[in-house]
């Protein structure tokens, strides 16, 4: 319940960011450089006088966009590869070895390596993180397809002469979606964390775009004079990840009661 509340809150903040933000995230108030939280700047200002509240709120929007797009991309790639690998046995070895190859790299390292060749931009962060999570979805889908393709209703559909594409789309895919949907919440959380990490390291979204990672990276230099620059974006990241993890755990308990109580949560890539 708390997870769902936090997730909905983040989504609402992302949707209405310009209205809630009060200030433009790029607007400079040079007179109030490194100002502590006040009535006009609720979370203080950064080293060039930009409003931290506004930058954190707009960062939420970026994180939600990146998280959603990474989940969509990893689902498309992972479901296609997983369905093909699980259903067509000769393809399985080839596709899964490619997936194993991707999984041989720690997620963040693979994303950094891809960002090095693609260059810093929001789209490239989505592509890099999406590719990182494709193998995870593909493995889950493949595992479910291996079981479902042996079930009598799939055999019956094949015996009736139903084309493979319809068997896959109408009979196999809907039955292997529930573990993937649960995994989607954890991938969303990992993507939000991954985007923040890449931006923090300076290889994610360009510095002028407000993101949690960028705000944190800028604030790190002023930890002693202006701790609010790191505390507020840090709290925003924590609230979002906590919400997504709790929501994912709840969703898994709902869809798979056997797994109740076994927490997994997001693992840093």
């Amino acid at each position: 319940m708390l997870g769902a509340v936090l997730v909905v809150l983040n989504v609402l903040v992302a949707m209405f960011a310009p209205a809630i933000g009060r200030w433009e995230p790029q607007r400079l108030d040079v007179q109030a450089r490194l100002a502590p939280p006040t009535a006009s700047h609720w979370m203080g200002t950064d080293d060039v006088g930009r409003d931290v509240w506004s930058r954190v709120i707009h960062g939420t929007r970026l994180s939600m966009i990146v998280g959603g797009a990474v989940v969509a991309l990893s689902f498309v790639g992972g479901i296609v590869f997983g369905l093909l690998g699980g259903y067509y046995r000769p393809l399985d070895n080839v596709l899964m070895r490619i997936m194993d190859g991707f999984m041989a790299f720690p997620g963040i390292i693979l994303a950094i390596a891809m960002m090095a060749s693609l260059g810093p931009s929001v789209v490239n962060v989505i592509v890099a993180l999406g590719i990182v999570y494709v193998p995870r979805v593909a493995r889950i889908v493949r595992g479910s397809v291996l079981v479902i393709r042996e079930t009598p209703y799939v055999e019956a559909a094949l015996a009736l002469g139903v084309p493979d594409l319809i068997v896959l789309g109408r009979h196999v895919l809907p039955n292997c979606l529930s573990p993937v949907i649960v995994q989607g919440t954890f991938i969303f959380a990992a993507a939000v964390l991954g985007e923040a990490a890449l931006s923090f390291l300076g290889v994610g979204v360009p510095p002028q775009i407000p993101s949690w990672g960028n705000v944190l990276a800028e604030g790190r230099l002023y930890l002693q004079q202006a701790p609010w620059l790191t505390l507020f974006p840090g709290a925003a990241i924590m609230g979002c990840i906590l919400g997504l993890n709790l929501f994912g755990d709840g969703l898994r308990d709902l869809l798979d009661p056997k797994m109740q109580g076994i927490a997994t949560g997001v693992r840093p890539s």
Partner: protein
Amino acid sequence: MILVFGVWLRWLPVAGYVPLDVGLWPNARSLLMPSVSLGLVQSALIASITRSSMLDVLREQYILASRAKGLAESAVVYKHALKNAIIPTLTVIGIPFAILVGGAVVIETVFNIPGLGRLIISAVLRRDYPVIQGVVLVIAVTYTLINLAVDLVYLTLDPRIRYQ
């Protein structure tokens, strides 16, 4: 942590790495915060898996039998229950153990530690592609070897597991 222990309390250095040849204590002090911040996240995952695994094992018949024959609670928990509950935990320990190799990138940057993570970030910012390739290769090989080592540890802990 940096704010509390480094800036406010001044107990530990805010950043930087002190080599071992300078002294064991300065080296340990410089590594304490990075190690704790890297390990704390993984410890939550390991604790929750161990807990659920222990709860399952403690409901088994042989645990009831051990208690019925009058074994001390510590012997029941540590000798009989934990040994069997540790297998699923080990599966999970393997994951963060390997993830730490990559996860250190952010921590090394935060704490200004001259490790592989910092090297790859500085190489990316300088567009030094040979260095990026080299570091990614070294990390990928280490990651794979750690996973292999964890798989081999399963064999020794649970003789029922056999690889073809």
